[in-house]
């Protein structure tokens, strides 16, 4: 883009948007001042009521009015603290058209090429390929939407578009540790970026965005570089983010949700290979919590054992006990008859002698 006329045309668009921005700020301030004035009237009303109530000896009514005064004062204090910075306003005058044209020339010098899209009404530059800590991310286009400059405090007027995307393996919308859905998370650069846009310092704006793209802040990325390629599940190989990985403390590997479970007894997470299943309730149990029945040797969770014996064995043992008891009882009942049979019969024997 070399045509001076095109520079002037773009500079005009930027200038108009900056005028809108200033006007919008003043309009917002006026609205807030109107709200504040309404609160003053409310305060005056409550104050008059309080005066009348006290004069007539209506103490309860005076207390109620005092409560209204207190509330109004609190709201006004909050409003004033919010309005004051708005009233301070920008320190600089609006840039002249010639200054904006110089900005565009400087932009071209700094970035090599500047593209103006007539249809989209956008101004774009392309960065050099970005590599952070050995991770190649490719070049990015910084696209400033000129017709939204006036709303810089309500919405982001620019996009950051990956031209050779190498997104995170677990989220394609993250093309850079600090870019998601083509929106840059500005971090420490937020205030300077807004100031640059508001003052029409176009080259500074693009330079600031480029500086953020060329910096990796490990404490606050959308996805860190370490996790950029994701973590494979040790069992099935599924690629997952660190938040979706489950660590088995037995085999010390990471697993996905499908290949892991948790122990019903101790609620620790384990992979399916390191967990067992209770023969009775079929719930998954870890090695620490699975216990063998002292009778049958099958594996159960501790909830399905009673004094180390499973329910089934316990029932069998009860049945056996009952049978033994019955047998013993039968034996005891049969003994007098048996004894009676074994004693000699005196009657008939005497007669024979």
């Amino acid at each position, binding site marked *: 883009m070399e045509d001076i006329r095109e520079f002037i045309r773009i500079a005009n668009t930027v200038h108009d948007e900056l005028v809108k921005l200033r006007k919008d700020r003043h309009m917002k301030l006026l609205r807030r001042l109107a709200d504040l004035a309404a609160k003053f009237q409310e305060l005056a009303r409550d104050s008059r009521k309080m005066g009348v109530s006290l004069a007539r000896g209506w103490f309860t009514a005076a207390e109620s009015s005092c409560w209204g005064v207190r509330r109004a004062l609190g709201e006004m204090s909050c409003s004033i603290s919010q309005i004051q910075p708005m009233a301070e306003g920008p*320190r600089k005058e609006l840039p002249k058209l010639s200054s904006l044209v110089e900005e565009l020339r400087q932009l071209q010098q700094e970035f090599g090429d500047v593209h103006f899209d007539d249809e989209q009404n956008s101004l774009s530059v392309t960065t050099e390929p970005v590599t952070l800590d050995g991770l190649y991310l490719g070049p990015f286009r910084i696209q400033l939407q000129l017709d939204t400059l006036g709303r810089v405090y309500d919405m982001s007027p620019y996009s950051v578009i990956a031209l050779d995307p190498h997104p995170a393996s677990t989220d394609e919308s993250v093309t850079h540790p600090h870019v998601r859905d083509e929106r840059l998370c500005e971090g420490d650069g937020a*205030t300077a970026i807004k100031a640059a846009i508001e003052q029409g310092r176009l080259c*500074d704006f693009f330079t600031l965005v480029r500086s953020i793209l060329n*910096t990796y802040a490990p404490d606050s990325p959308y996805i860190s570089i370490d996790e950029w390629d994701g973590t494979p599940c040790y069992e099935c190989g599924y690629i997952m983010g660190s938040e979706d990985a489950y660590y088995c403390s037995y085999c010390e590997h990471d697993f996905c949700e499908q290949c892991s479970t948790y122990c019903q007894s101790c609620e620790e997470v384990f992979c399916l290979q390191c967990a067992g299943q209770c023969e009775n309730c079929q719930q998954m149990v870890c090695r620490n919590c699975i216990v063998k029945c002292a009778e049958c040797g099958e594996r159960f969770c501790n909830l399905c054992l009673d004094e180390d014996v499973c329910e089934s064995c316990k029932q069998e043992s009860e049945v056996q006990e009952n049978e033994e008891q019955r047998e013993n009882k039968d034996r005891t009942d049969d003994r007098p008859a048996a004894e009676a049979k074994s004693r000699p019969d005196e009657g008939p024997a005497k007669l024979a002698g």
Partner: protein
Amino acid sequence: MRILFIDNEGGGYADYLDIAEHTTIDQFFTIKMSGRSASDFLIRVNRQPVPQDYVLKEGDRVTITPTKIDGA
């Protein structure tokens, strides 16, 4: 003499400053960005790169922009 200084680190504010005559851009940087390395910044005078021994003049526009800024 008076120059316009735009500090793009932090607030990004532009202010007029009074500095001593014959101050070079390197000296100015050392005063304003004490302890920092010039290689970590993009330094422009009147929108142009200048050598470090450039002597500042009345009305010069100095911009200092960090080349590394932490995103979030």
